[in-house]
């Protein structure tokens, strides 16, 4: 009952005219920023933060604006993922796996509308989760120590190895390359410079934006070059622009399951939308078994990561609000925004600033409705983007990528680094290394090392801490299962071949 009162109070804050306007504006800008390849929620939030401050918005209005941008990006990221095979942000990597094939089959309209509804359901379930569990989950997340986090990240990478079934070694190699890229820069614990080759620009590491834009946008430009040469063209959208009731029923439980899973993963500090979409995609693929067409345009493969990444975006607000620990890169920027307003996120925030917290939560509900209403009718407009010819589209992607990277540090070095990583990514893609594993590795890299070292600092160097708690033992067992999967498949395939020969 107390929660309900607070929520009503929150709605009262969120429905003030200026806050509604801000949510509408944020949702619109967020969708556009998410739609532009290379510009993700971090860019959107980082770009609008100075604006919010310059306009002198009160803290709750500023937070509502940033949260609306964040949600809008999760809606918009899927559009470029489906239409261009370029994820707007790392979380949309999984959306490309089935979304792009669907677009190639001429079902872009269906994919877009269905993913909008998946996003909506994901966000709604997760926002209800925030309302119900925010006070309780603060206690639960504390049970995860650094050792458990380290094992959880190993499990996430092992999942990828087990998922991209036919080439586990290449997948794990790609993840390792990502992890290694994340070690570039000054070591946060000791201040030692690692792999910087004396360059000042590398001393604070390779920026996430540069890696994402380089590996996805630039290498995509190079890959598209080959396709124009061989005369292949993107399939035009035709037929229905809206999914039908049967397709909705087919994917409904996938959405609900993925939303719940995405929410839980989003709540864990440090484990954000990327892991959520990867893990739900993988588990849906497993559950569908051989009946699914995952990777070739399965609607469930589209609904699962979309519901999960929106759910985890909402879920990641819980650790941010209750613990002061960011659940994702974007919430890290939002914590920066709160400290600008002299508000320290933490367990006391719910008591001291109920207007801010509950206004934000209520605005999530409102923002979601705005986004769904905005996205469904505009689906036709988005789907029409495929008819833009390559000689306009590709230069535009390139120019926007340049701007996105230049906005981070304003140096030529970053631009050249982006092109270099893009060429490297192109080579890796030609050799069939999955780049989504690389990005996951890069995202996890620093967290993984930090948690490993923190765990070993706690135990004074004793490795036993990594498998001492029931949670970590359980995660190790699951990791072993995942790593054993390809070997088991290979062994069974060989045995059936032998039987057939005999």
């Amino acid at each position, binding site marked *: 009952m107390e929660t309900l009162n607070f929520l009503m109070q929150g709605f009262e804050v969120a429905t003030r005219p200026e806050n509604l306007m801000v949510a509408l504006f944020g949702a619109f800008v967020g969708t556009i920023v998410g739609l532009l390849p290379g510009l993700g929620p971090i860019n959107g939030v980082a770009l609008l933060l100075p604006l919010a401050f310059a306009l002198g918005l009160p803290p709750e209005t500023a937070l509502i604006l940033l949260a609306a941008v964040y949600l809008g990006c999760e809606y918009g990221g899927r559009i470029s993922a489906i239409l261009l095979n370029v994820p707007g942000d790392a979380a949309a990597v999984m959306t490309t796996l089935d979304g792009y094939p669907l677009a190639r089959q001429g079902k872009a309209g269906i994919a877009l509308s269905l993913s909008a509804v998946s996003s909506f359901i994901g966000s709604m379930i997760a926002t209800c989760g925030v309302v119900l569990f925010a006070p309780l989950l603060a206690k639960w997340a504390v049970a995860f120590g650094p050792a458990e986090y380290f094992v959880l990240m190993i499990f996430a990478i092992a999942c990828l190895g087990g998922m991209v079934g036919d080439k586990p*070694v290449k997948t794990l190699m790609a993840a390792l390359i990502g992890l290694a890229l994340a070690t570039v820069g000054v070591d946060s614990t000791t201040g030692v410079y690692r792999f910087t080759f004396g360059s000042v620009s590398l001393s604070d590491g390779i920026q996430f934006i540069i890696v994402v834009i380089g590996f996805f946008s630039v290498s995509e430009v190079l890959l598209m070059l080959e396709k124009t040469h*061989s005369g292949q063209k993107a399939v035009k959208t035709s037929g229905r622009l809206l999914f039908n009731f049967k397709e909705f029923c087919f994917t409904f439980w996938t959405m609900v399951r993925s939303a719940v899973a995405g929410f839980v993963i989003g709540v864990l500090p440090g484990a954000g939308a990327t892991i959520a979409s990867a893990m739900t995609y993988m588990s849906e693929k497993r559950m569908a078994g051989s009946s699914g067409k995952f990777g070739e345009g399965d609607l469930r493969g589209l609904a699962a990561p979309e519901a999960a990444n929106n759910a985890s975006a909402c879920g990641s607000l819980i650790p941010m609000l209750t613990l002061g620990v960011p659940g994702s890169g974007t919430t890290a920027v939002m914590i920066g925004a709160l400290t600008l307003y002299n508000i320290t996120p933490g367990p006391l925030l719910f008591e001291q600033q109920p207007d801010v917290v509950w206004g934000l939560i209520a605005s999530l509900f409102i923002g979601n409705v705005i986004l769904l209403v905005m996205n469904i009718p505009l689906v036709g407009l988005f789907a029409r983007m495929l008819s833009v010819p390559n*000689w306009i589209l590709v*230069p535009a992607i390139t*120019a926007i990528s340049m701007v996105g990277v230049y906005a981070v540090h*304003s140096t030529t070095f970053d631009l050249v680094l982006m*092109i270099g990583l893009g060429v490297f990514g192109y080579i890796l893609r030609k050799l069939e290394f999955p780049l989504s594993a690389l990005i996951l590795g890069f995202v996890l890299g620093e967290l993984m090392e930090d948690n490993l070292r923190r765990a*070993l600092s706690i135990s004074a160097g004793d490795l036993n801490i990594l498998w001492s708690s029931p949670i970590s033992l359980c995660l190790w067992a699951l990791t072993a299962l995942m790593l054993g999967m390809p070997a088991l498949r290979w062994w069974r395939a060989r045995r059936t071949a032998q039987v057939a020969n005999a």
Partner: protein
Amino acid sequence: MYVRLFAATWLLFCAGLAVLAWGFQAPFAYDPVGPRAYPLLLLTLMAAGSLWLLVKPGLREQKLDSSSALRSVLCMLTLLAYALLFESLGFIISTALGTFALGLLFTGRLLPCAISGVLMGVLLYGLFDYLLDVPLPLGLFEAFVES
């Protein structure tokens, strides 16, 4: 063949980085692990993976034909030139030139590519610099603005 080539190169690269990583030492031990162990662990695992790929590179191989390889190299050079000239020429001019060249590479016709290049340079500058407040370099235009 290409996978083997890549694996061999990567193995050498890992070895080189490992030599570099061996020198990472903190002047004072802040934690029991130190800055060296984790990169070395990753390099060891990557080297193991490269060895595996050297022995078993997989079955499928894509063929490269020389004309598409040439176009790829041209595209890479265009991108590199665009990146290098981005600051000195300024966003508007470098983008107009870069998008014009890329448009031609993607089988666009001469005049439409030129028009779209100039339009993109000007419009994107307006969008980002004025509307979204992303500072972009003016380059050659800087003299005009100053005076």
